[in-house]
């Protein structure tokens, strides 16, 4: 065994399984404090925008991680669920619904679609599955682009509500801080839900399916059922940031909420942060969104774009250098600093 992409760094899974020791609690508290302090420490629109987008895509990556990271079903079609959330919110709010209600509806819809898609594809392995996820999402995007009441290629605009506030999820456009805290709340809820789901038997089953499907089936794990449940959860979590994104940018169109680039971005955030880790999506999202927004503002006049190149280089680097992503890298540095006193990590031996 060489380095694998799925080594669920065991300190995290351990913490998830056996209840949080004080170090984990301290780590979580510190992270939360940093996240709350962020908009006050960096009170610019640019920084707030990065924070909001990072939290949005980090939430989607938490959803991806349940299926791709913990169950080992690498999806390059997570945008499907994000898009379902976004379009549901756009349609719902245009019909006069509360955005909060549309989030719930979108989430349930996405879970249903996830089951529908997973039902036949659950027996596909590796690249067969990954290509199938691309195929399904592209087909849906082509359909949406041709459907009149979904606004075709130009998409749907969201109406401007009469009054601002938490109920209508619309705020004074000059101050993005309220959006930031809504995004933070969304991320925390999704993260806690993910961690809680993985804590129990389901998490263990999912990782068993990921690590060795035959062995998992042999000890009585219903592989298909686990995949279906994880897909549904993954979809329902990824739909909520889609709905929030629709509220934030006030416009939903096929490439921005269903495109392959978005799927790539969501998967990349999880891979870059560390596949199958709980801290991964947050670290990956902030790194990536910062790079993206920074290069975009620096290069905007040239008409060229650097962000795809950086994404690609980062993915390749992660697979070559540190399949554990940023979390894996941090652990490696930590081990070097504090010596080998910690438990050794399984499955990371040299060939």
């Amino acid at each position, binding site marked *: 065994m060489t*380095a694998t*992409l799925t080594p669920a760094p065991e300190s995290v899974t351990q913490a998830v399984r056996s209840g949080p020791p004080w170090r984990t609690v301290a780590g979580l508290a510190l992270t939360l404090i940093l996240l709350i302090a962020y908009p006050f420490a960096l009170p610019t629109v640019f920084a707030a925008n990065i924070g909001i987008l990072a939290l949005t895509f980090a939430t989607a990556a938490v959803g991806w991680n349940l299926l791709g990271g913990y169950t080992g079903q*690498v999806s390059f079609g997570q945008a499907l669920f994000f898009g379902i959330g976004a379009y549901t919110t756009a349609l719902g709010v245009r019909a006069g619904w509360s955005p909060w209600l549309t989030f719930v509806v979108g989430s349930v819809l996405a879970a249903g679609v996830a089951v529908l898609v997973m039902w036949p594809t659950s027996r596909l392995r590796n690249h067969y599955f990954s*290509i199938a996820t691309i195929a399904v999402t592209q087909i849906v995007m082509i359909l949406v682009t041709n459907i009149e009441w979904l606004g075709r290629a130009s998409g749907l605009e969201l109406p401007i509500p009469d009054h601002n506030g938490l109920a209508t999820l619309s705020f004074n456009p000059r101050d993005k801080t309220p959006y930031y805290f809504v995004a933070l709340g969304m991320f925390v809820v999704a993260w806690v839900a993910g961690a809680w789901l993985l804590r129990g038997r389901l998490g263990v089953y999912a990782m068993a399916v990921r690590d060795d499907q035959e062995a998992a089936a042999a000890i009585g794990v219903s592989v298909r059922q686990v995949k279906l449940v994880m897909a549904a959860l993954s979809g329902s979590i990824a739909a909520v940031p889609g709905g929030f994104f629709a509220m934030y940018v006030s416009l939903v169109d096929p490439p921005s909420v269903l495109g392959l680039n978005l799927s790539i971005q969501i998967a*990349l955030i999880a891979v870059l942060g560390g596949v199958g880790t709980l801290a991964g999506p947050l670290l990956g999202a902030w790194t990536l969104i910062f790079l993206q927004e920074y290069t975009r503002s620096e290069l905007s006049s040239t008409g060229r774009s650097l962000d795809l190149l950086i*994404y690609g280089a980062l993915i390749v680097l992660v697979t070559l250098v540190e399949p554990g992503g940023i979390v894996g890298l941090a652990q490696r540095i930590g081990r070097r600093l504090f010596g080998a006193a910690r438990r050794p990590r399984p499955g990371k031996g040299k060939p």
Partner: protein
Amino acid sequence: MNGVLLGAVFALAAVGLTLIFGVMDVVNFAHGEFLMLGMYTAFFAWSLFGLDPMLSVPISALAMALLGWIVYRGVIARVLTGPPLNQVIATFGLLVLLRGLAQLLFTADTRKVLHPWAENIRFEIGSVVIGGPQLLTAIGALGCTLLVGWFIDRTEIGTALRAVGEDRAAAALQGLDAEKLFRLAWMIAGATTGVAGALLMNSYVASPEAGIAFGLISFVVVALGGFGSIGGAAVAGIGLGVVQGVVGAYAANYTLAAALALYLVVVLVRPQGLVGNR
């Protein structure tokens, strides 16, 4: 008829993908981007040196073979021993990287070779008009596909490639150097995308997006023909071209969707491919 001509290009585009899969069980997600860079090579050969796409076929083939070699040595060889998941993500990363490179260097503008030599040729059979660019592209693509098929089936090196694909350990016992053969497979695959890319510049525009479009089509062709089968890819490519032609005649917006739906049906119902017998 136009479907058949288009299908010949699909076949050639898919040959390299299926070859690499057959020899080393790796799916190169970046395959379409190779083709896209092949198109750009032919475009710049024309815009900088005035070379017609037909003449830049060998240049583009060489350039892409070199790219295949670099990618194999730099990335693929290093993730081969890991789990398939790592390979999926690595080649997917390459897709994003090469596309990003094209977007940075060449911008998102579409590029077209104006008045390629092949436009001088034109056939009219009754009411059916066949353009020279399409015809020459198809003939070239078919020729190259057959050449690769012949090479794999009939030559000693081709036999070695197939042997490594079937059983790496047994092939090693016969004294075959898997490392060398893998490298060769990537160079051949690269060269085919170079040929396909240059031929396509007769009638298509190059853009960073072209990679995704042809990449997805290549996956469909490879799945239809049976992963790893070159003959299957050739037949499936032409078949898909005809399907695209028929769907395009009735619902032009849905040609790609139809192709992708075909992929789903095939991998779910008949994973060995429509043509394959494995």
